[in-house]
């Protein structure tokens, strides 16, 4: 039985990896379908080359854990429209920069809008956006708030910092989303998997406890995993053991970062500034209480309150299978556009552009 040694150096030890792989191969009897929800897991699995090492009985399916991918197409159009308004200075995470909207005229992405003169800056943190606002008092700086529970605490903290500093020219366009409600909606509609590899960083905030309702309601084994090769193998081994014993509970294989309760302080900060609301998910439609809106007390930092933002209800580009792929129902290879009309250079859907997108990962790393 492989022990999990908690130092990062040890998590890269080839001996440990080989041991875990040996246990998995020796242990597995029946086929198992595991959904790895988190986009960072999708990329890590590809990057480590794990698909070439795991037995064929393990099928890995990517889920909706890519915040850029699940941003509705109409939302992207709204970002581009905002970027092109005079006096607006957008700050965004790099992931959104090249995602295409639905428009076929003028700028079809933030990158194109920037090339056409819009003021858009890529930032690593929302606090950088606040600093931009303080440095440029004549502009309205808008931070595009995408991301799941990992990201929202810093965004909430930034809004509080803006209020404290009395900054009047800063706002957040919140399209933040919550993971557990989306998973519940997903499995209510289609329960096609045998185990859930739970996201590592989101769980650091919400705690391993957050998956208990899922495990109970759907009889679904859930294991929280990290991102080193040994982390992922350990989590898969635990899922296989549960599956083969007919057990369905929540286990934490990423104890060096994730606790059972999660980060209560971070959740408090988020709760102070945001409240749950309905949100539009690409591929899944509208899901109640699955997004975060800024509370009325912080209205002046809410881009949607301050500005007349047009929400264009645009439909999916024809032929694009991003929706089904995000649900784990289809693979990128099933999509008629994959690798032909839709490539990283000329993407149709966000799944191909985002660094965490299933299609991007497949295109970069798997057999073409």
């Amino acid at each position, binding site marked *: 039985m492989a022990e999990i040694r908690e130092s990062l150096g040890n998590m*890269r030890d*080839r001996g440990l*990896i*080989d041991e875990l*792989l040996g246990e998995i191969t020796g242990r597995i009897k029946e086929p198992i379908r595991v959904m790895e929800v988190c986009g960072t897991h999708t990329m890590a699995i*590809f*990057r*480590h*080359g*794990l*698909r*070439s*090492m795991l037995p064929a009985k393990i099928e890995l399916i990517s889920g909706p854990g890519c915040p850029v991918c699940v941003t509705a197409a109409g939302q992207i159009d709204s970002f581009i429209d905002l970027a092109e308004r005079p006096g607006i200075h957008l700050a965004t995470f790099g992931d959104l920069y*090249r995602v295409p909207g639905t428009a076929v005229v003028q700028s079809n992405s933030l990158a194109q809008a920037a090339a056409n003169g819009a003021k858009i800056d890529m930032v*690593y943190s929302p606090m950088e956006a606040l600093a931009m606002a303080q440095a440029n008092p004549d502009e309205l700086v808008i931070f595009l708030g995408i991301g799941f529970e990992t990201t929202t605490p810093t965004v909430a903290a930034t809004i509080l910092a803006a209020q404290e500093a009395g900054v009047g020219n800063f706002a957040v366009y919140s399209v933040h989303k919550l993971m557990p409600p989306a998973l519940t909606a997903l499995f209510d509609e289609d329960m096609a998997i045998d185990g859930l590899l739970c996201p590592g960083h989101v769980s650091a905030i919400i705690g391993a406890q957050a998956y208990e309702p899922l495990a109970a309601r759907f009889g679904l084994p859930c294991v929280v995993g990290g991102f080193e*090769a*040994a982390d992922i193998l350990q989590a898969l081994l635990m899922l296989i053991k549960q599956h083969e014993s007919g057990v369905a509970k929540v286990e934490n294989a990423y104890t060096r970062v994730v606790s059972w309760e999660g980060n209560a302080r971070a959740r408090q900060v988020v709760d102070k500034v945001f409240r749950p609301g309905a949100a539009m998910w690409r591929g899944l439609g509208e899901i109640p209480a699955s997004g975060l809106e800024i509370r009325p007390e912080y209205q002046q930092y809410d881009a949607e309150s301050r500005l007349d933002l047009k929400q264009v209800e645009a439909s999916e580009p024809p032929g694009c299978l991003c929706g089904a792929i995000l649900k784990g129902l289809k693979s990128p290879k099933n999509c008629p556009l994959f690798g032909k009309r839709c*490539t*990283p*250079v000329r993407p149709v859907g966000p799944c191909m552009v985002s*660094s965490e997108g299933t299609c991007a990962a497949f*295109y*970069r*790393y*798997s*057999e*073409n």
Partner: protein
Amino acid sequence: MSGLDNPALNELEDCALIDMPAGRLAFSTDSYVVDPIFFPGGNIGDLAVHGTINDLAMRGARPMALSLGLILEEGLPLADLQKIIDSIALASKKAGVPIVTGDTKVVPHGKGDKIFINTSGVGIVPAGVDLGARQVRAGDTIILSGTMADHGITIMVARNKLAFEGDIRSDTQALHNLTLALSERANGALHAMRDPTRGGVATTLCEIAEMAEVSMILDEAAIPIRPQVQSACELLGLEPLYLANEGKCLVVVAEDFVDDALRIMRQRPEGRDAAIIGRVEDGLAGRVEITTLAGGRRLVTALTGEPLPRIC
């Protein structure tokens, strides 16, 4: 321009006249718009000198002379300009490649960005030296002359004004002495050399594989990388295989020359960390794979688009 003192330049004629030895003329040009213009390990000036020297060197040329074109934005502090010129002069002198002709223009404030530089260079490739991607064949060994991603990560860190402990600096340096030492002894066993600048080691090898119509298999564990560069990449979510190198070269040689090539490279400071990182195989044209640190295998593809704008 006194720092750039040399006989050809000092003539102050409309052009320089150079006595060239026998051989084929190699000719290269590059423009430099790196932002920021000063970074740990160098600046836009020495980058411009080393970059063009290296482009000549990669085809087996002995660099003979450089031109230097400057486009300055009005308002660029003279002290900054002097520092850059001093670096250029020093780099040129150390490399033994004179700047024989040049030009300076000034554009109004807002119409440039501090300083843009163009360097062109000429060199001579001796008879019998024929290097290029199309010479690469199955059975060849791929060597990298030293640690990867140093320049790319330095620019990323500097641009974002991130405070990293641990020495992160650009690797910008001239490689022609290393490349000439190799091509002079190789006797046909040296097939290609490339400096993996934009797009990094991964993109450069993908390009070579496609042009040569071969496959390649790389070994992630064998690729030299400094631990602080590895950590910085992980923290910033960047893949070192795709980050620029400005003082390293990929060397593809026939199997029987490998030991000698490594010895020749490691004897020089520019190549002291040289290591075998992969081999060339028969297979699908352009296909590059890597065995990962974890022991798996995956595909390596060329970078599309611009990961980091203005890194060189």
